[in-house]
């Protein structure tokens, strides 16, 4: 029994929505970073699902490689963003002794 690629896309959509909801609802910067990571992985899953869909499609010329290649780029860039993000969190904590987004509000109208 094989799982249809559409189901994988739907799962990726749900994961993305969960990540986006967490991004807007949670106030701890670390948790927000985790939510972004979840969204990036949802994008990865949908790239792979789409690649599978196009590979198995009737009349495909060969494996659709763009999807997996994009996923590898995303993994690399997710690591870069995590490194920069955590460095910023450390700088923030040194300044304010807090990693809560509600305490980060010096700049406003």
């Amino acid at each position: 029994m094989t799982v249809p690629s559409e189901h994988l896309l739907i799962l990726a959509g749900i994961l993305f929505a969960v990540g986006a909801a967490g991004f807007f609802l949670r106030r701890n910067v670390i948790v927000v970073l985790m939510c972004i990571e979840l969204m990036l992985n949802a994008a990865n899953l949908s790239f792979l699902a789409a690649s599978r869909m196009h590979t198995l499609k009737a009349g495909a010329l060969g494996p659709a490689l763009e999807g997996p290649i994009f996923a590898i780029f995303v993994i690399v860039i997710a690591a870069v963003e995590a490194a920069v993000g955590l460095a910023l969190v450390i700088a923030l904590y040194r300044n304010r002794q807090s990693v809560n987004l509600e305490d980060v509000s010096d700049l406003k109208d």
Partner: protein
Amino acid sequence: MIAAMIQASTTTADIMKAGLMEEIFSERTLQATGPFMALSFGILLLVLAEIVPGLQLLRKLIFIATLGVAGWCAWKTIGAPEAWVFEDTYVANSTTGWWTMLFLAATFIAWLFGQRYYKAESALEGEHDLLMMSACAGMVLMAGSRDLLVFFVGLELLSVPLYTLSAFQRSRRESVEAGLKYFVLGAFAAATYLFGSALVYAGTGTLTFKAINPADLGGPLVIAGAALIAASLFFKVSVFPFHMWVPDVYQGAPAPVTTFMATGTKAAAFAFLVPAAAALLPYESKHLAAVIALVTMAVGNFGALVQTDLKRLLAYSGVAHAGTLLLAIAALQGEPGPDAAMRAVLFYMAAYVFTAGGAFGLVTMLESQTGRAVTIDSIKGLAAKRPGIAAALALFMLSLGGIPATGGFLGKYLVFSLAVRSDLLVVALIGIVLSVVALAYYLRVIVALYMQPEMDGKPVPTQARALSGLVAFACAVMVLALGLVPAWFLDSLR
């Protein structure tokens, strides 16, 4: 099945390899990617200059020379026949050549104004220059890409250094706050872009614009994907409702970085937005885009009316300008077509880079000299003491407001006439009315400069910095040149 996939991939790879290698090392490819290569090489040299003792003295020379070489490479692509390289994912033509020149100019302006700005962080200026050059390379990649993956790499090459640069003054609370806000929202926008690209890929089976079959564009997956991609690009160019971060980040970030962000980032995102909108957005999106453009102009202009901090005021003004440019994007779905829209956007952005670059640059200089935030109050009476600086700042304000004889006016004229030709007459008229509202706060700055006495306790600096003054003068000359003798530039875009 997996064995079959591996079998298939090796055979396709073998067929492709011979031709691909030849193409990658061909003169055509090198010429098309020349500016990006030059910048990448410059980045490596700057890294080297950081770690090899003695080479640090050469840092500034390397920076200037790299920009010069990249500019020379970009100049060679202007007027040369259009070159599509790397399997149609990257293009070099006159337009991308001019965009590259513009990014280099934005980088150079921000860098020159940033000299002697950093005090506590001056030992880290090598890293600052390095990050700035990486961001510039990212912009060049963004402008030339005609593929969702190549654009994403360029976007991150631009964004990640900018997150770091915004928080560059690590011990200043506002700087770190600006960096964090920009990072959190930027990472969210990047994730949105990626999910959108994945949906477009699922719907069309390709990431390259040229390979997209127009028949696939109407599908629900592609429409959802294009909407997500548009949302993330709207964040980068600060279009309503994704503009909230702009005033905070522009105010908190170090002033040279703000100068860079305000000019370069916006230009790079619009350079890609035009071809992306032409390739992915359906005709029906035209009116929605026009409405978003108007709301953005209104939010920016009315937001700026109540600001006193000059960086915040210019940030809101930048939001309004992004709205005007979005009008050109909306108009490209109609009769004028993407090429005319690209010309209008490029000219508008060229005027904006020199105008906003000069204005933010003078704010940088004043902030660095007085050690305080630059507000409307703190520039009162500047004309009496520093007439040259005040005149330049006043000229930039007039150009931002779109007064005739400045580059800003002609840019606005091109965009609004494009909208009229594309049957968006009502939208263009409302846009013009909103531009008049904008004059209120630009004139407030000029009134403070010329007609109000110096405030007690907020003395204006008695001396201008020679370098900053010179760069501001050069920007002012460019603003006037684009306004008075634009023909040579417009002709070279055809």
